[in-house]
């Protein structure tokens, strides 16, 4: 049994829809926002692929938003949009069967480092603000999203950096197959802060980006509104010695599980498709995220997935044809998902 995507919620530097993400990816040029005045602390750059206007209070209201970190707020907004887009209203009859599975890298690195810094710079090491303590746990975004939207089902946070979304998708698919949930918000989130900007600069990861992209995944047959895509399978593995071979192996396993021939793959979303040169047709369309949106870490896979949904939406001839979403980390993690989409859902899902 597979999962069906019936809604999406996107907050990105390219705009707030999967169509905007696709447009930016197709343009190929880095999306830029002026970040000079954004933080009191110095940044390694004056422009970055960061979200230009994100008004937390405008989007979430004043109540309960004062202490949210950016990653948490981005995730809460994207989760709300995915629910609305998928026309799923949590109520007392269904909320225990609706959950959240989010990908992360380290949680909010800024929240954790700021909190930790207080223990060093304050007069007493314990003079930290306890209200900010929950922001240092990596499941903060998923927990807050559940509180915000009243979702009492499976709630998980999966670490994986560039692979986080694919890990989350696999985790969610399992939960749906095993009957633990009827609907899950699955996505990835990453924030742009001085911490991530400098981390990306110092490790030569390219400019740090940020985004939150969340999809409503429902048990097949339980979907109330038009299905936009079906997630047929996700395979993951660990191949530190030969990531190309590992990724190709993952893709082959995912395709076999999905009952799909490699020759039928028409598109490849993600930044690591080159390793699959021999595994899928050379003509398969590539949808890389990084050149346009920077190093979005745990949100990268979710953006790639969104671009793919947008591509299906604008290309009726692609309906029902399988595509791959792939990811790879520098430590040797590899993952591939097989997706089949349709034009059905339209592409403006603000």
């Amino acid at each position, binding site marked *: 049994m597979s999962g069906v995507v019936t809604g999406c919620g996107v907050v990105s530097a390219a705009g707030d829809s999967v169509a905007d993400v696709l447009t930016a990816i197709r343009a190929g040029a880095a999306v830029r926002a002026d970040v000079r005045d954004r933080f009191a602390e110095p940044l390694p750059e004056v422009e970055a692929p960061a979200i230009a206007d994100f008004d937390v209070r405008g989007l979430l209201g004043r109540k309960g938003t004062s202490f949210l970190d950016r990653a948490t707020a981005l995730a809460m907004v994207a989760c709300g949009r995915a629910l609305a887009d998928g026309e799923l209203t949590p109520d007392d009859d269904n909320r225990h069967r609706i959950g959240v599975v989010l990908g992360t890298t380290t949680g909010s690195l800024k929240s*954790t480092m700021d909190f930790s810094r207080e223990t*060093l710079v304050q007069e007493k090491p314990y003079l930290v603000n306890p209200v900010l303590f929950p922001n240092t746990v*990596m499941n903060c975004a998923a927990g807050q999203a559940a509180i915000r939207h*009243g979702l009492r089902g499976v709630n998980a946070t999966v670490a994986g950096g560039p692979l986080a979304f694919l890990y989350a998708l696999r985790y969610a698919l399992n939960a749906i197959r095993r009957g633990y949930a009827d609907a899950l918000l699955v996505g990835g989130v990453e924030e742009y802060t001085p911490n991530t900007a*400098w981390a990306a600069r110092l490790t030569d990861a390219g400019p740090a980006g940020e985004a939150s992209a969340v999809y409503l995944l429902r048990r097949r047959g339980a979907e109330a509104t038009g299905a936009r895509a079906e997630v047929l399978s996700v395979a993951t*593995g660990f191949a530190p010695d030969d990531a190309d071979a590992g990724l190709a192996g993952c893709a082959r396993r995912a395709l076999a599980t999905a009952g799909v021939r490699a020759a039928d793959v028409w598109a490849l979303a993600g930044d690591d498709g080159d390793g699959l040169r021999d595994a899928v047709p050379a003509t398969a369309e590539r949808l890389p995220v990084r050149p346009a949106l920077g190093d979005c870490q745990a949100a990268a896979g979710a953006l790639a997935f969104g671009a793919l949904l947008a591509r299906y939406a604008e290309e009726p001839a692609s309906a029902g044809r399988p595509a791959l979403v792939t990811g790879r980390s520098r430590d040797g993690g590899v993952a591939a998902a097989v997706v089949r989409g349709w034009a059905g859902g339209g592409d403006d899902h603000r």
Partner: protein
Amino acid sequence: MHRVVVTGLGPVSGIGIGVDEFTDGLRRGRSAAAPITSFDASGFPHRYAGEVPAFRPAEVLRRVRVEQWGRSALLAAAAARLAATDAGLPLPLADPGRAGAVIGTTSGESTVVEQLVADLVAGGYPSMSVDSLRQAPAERLAYAVSAELGLAGESVTLTTACSASNYAIGYAYDLLHTGEADVMVAGGADSVCRWAHAGFFRLGALTERQCRPFDRDRSGILTGEGGAALVLETLDHAVARGARIYAEVLGHGLNCDAHHMVAPNEDSIAACMRLALDNAGIKPVDVDYVSTHGTGTPANDLCEARAIRAVFGDRVPPVSSIKSMLGHTMGAASGFGAIATTLAIRHGFLPPTINWANPDPELPWIDPVPNVARPATVRVAQNNGFAFGGNNAITIFGAIR
């Protein structure tokens, strides 16, 4: 569907490293509580924690190089190596793609992040260590396990705070149960760090020297650390290789409070227990022992005890909190609970709740196995794990039949 069994245990804890020492520690009610040495705690009013001062990663690890990984990854990898050795797992495995790792954590590489903060305070962002930045991602906990044991299958870190090990065991169980893997190493790891110590202190949740769960005068947690790993296999795989089987994983349950980031919710925790029992195909009356989350805060223990009462009614089984011995090992906590539960089934004893002096008149139905381990036949046991964010996860283990 495949039955799933536990064949190896790898505790790296303050009361013992390796299954024999750890079992002895549980039986004797040893305490890991001691003055903090991993950071300068002199400015804190409370300066005790459950550290693992005897941990020498190079003495345990065979494949991963110590200098390339953070402390939490090393705790995870060492726990996994010990568990694999205990299981007699023939490494490298014949089919490493059918074996993987699922590791839970609260704060990931917290000591690496604290090193970055020290760099930052000393010299600004540009002085952050590149090596530390590369070690910081939490996904590296599972990668360290996979690298140490040469596993090529799923390698995933679940960051669902203090119930994360139960999430990991539950997910590994599912992958084995459905036939997607033959062997999974599951558990969790976390390191004592300054920021968590400060955070819990400021929440008013930190006790001074002794954690005394379910005692009338309980006053909070002690932060702790460690690595906990279990080798899980399908029954067929274990039998085919002639493995010693400790216990069976019967099932698990997950839900979310969706109520408050730090305050537990009684109804939701009771609901999670029912989910876990249903998933395991058993009834409350079948449960002989509950390894509790049992943090020792007034709020947690009251809430957990009431939820237990709501589910078990007039037949509440004995419960105990090994956090009284280990401290709160965060993402590793329910992994240690799973190991203790497995040992309780295998060896027929209930681990004690140490430091216990007075019954709480608000919890008269609770038998906390006070202070001394108790001989008992444990056929089925429940292992509780709850977390910030309302992430509840419970695993159920049973004697092999």
